[in-house]
């Protein structure tokens, strides 16, 4: 489970995504090919059934800041999946 080969991240789910996945957060071990935020979004859409077909409007945050697709992911990062916001 905690093989040294893998980058481990924490994923947070909010609002509609928490309801759909049934959880507020989980730990993920990333395949070596998944090194950037954009690739992570595509990977998660594949491996998390509740996310399939639903990622188009979802933004990703890395360590509490909105993340660009090209941003690199590092061991221990906290990645949040943010549905369209509706504050105010």
């Amino acid at each position, binding site marked *: 489970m905690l093989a040294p080969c893998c980058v481990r991240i924490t994923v*947070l789910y*909010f*609002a*509609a995504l928490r*309801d759909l996945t049934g959880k507020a957060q989980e730990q993920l071990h990333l395949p070596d090919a998944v090194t950037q935020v954009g690739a992570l979004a595509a990977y998660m859409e594949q491996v998390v059934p509740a996310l*399939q*077909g*639903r990622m*188009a*409007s979802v933004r990703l*945050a890395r360590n*509490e*800041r*909105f993340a660009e697709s090209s941003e690199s992911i590092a061991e221990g990062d906290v990645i*949040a999946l*943010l*549905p*369209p*916001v*509706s*504050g*105010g």
Partner: protein
Amino acid sequence: MTLLELRHEPLSLDEAVRAVQHEGAGAIAVFLGVVRNHNNGQPVVLLEYEAYAPMASKEMQLIAQQIEQQSPGVRVAALHRLGSLQVGDIAVICAASAPHRQEAFQACRALIDRIKEQVPIWKREHGPQGAYWVEWVDARCSADDHDHAAHAHRDPHEGNH
């Protein structure tokens, strides 16, 4: 010492105004977002607000800094409520002071616009047909579904405030 907070307790208008008031401020513009009794043509009885709190706080700080740097002499404050709110409850207060009203109005408007656009806060609306997350359109549902999400999609300009 800018006042920018997420709170589960009722928000105080006076507190927000005091936070931006100073002796050089001739104009203070304030915006209140209030839970109203309908949205998208549906009655609303309850709203639940949740936030990604640490990130929301950082985003609010960022927005406030941008606005204050853009307009020298402007000071802003924002309070956003979390938890269960009923019709008439204040969900958000934005305040901006400036020497003159033009800058105060502009800053206050920019503050609420950007908070609504980019601060990770979500609300779930409870009406007679159940509960749904505002702004969430489930891309897996077909366009002729008659649930709230599809309804919201048909009227994208009808935000809560």
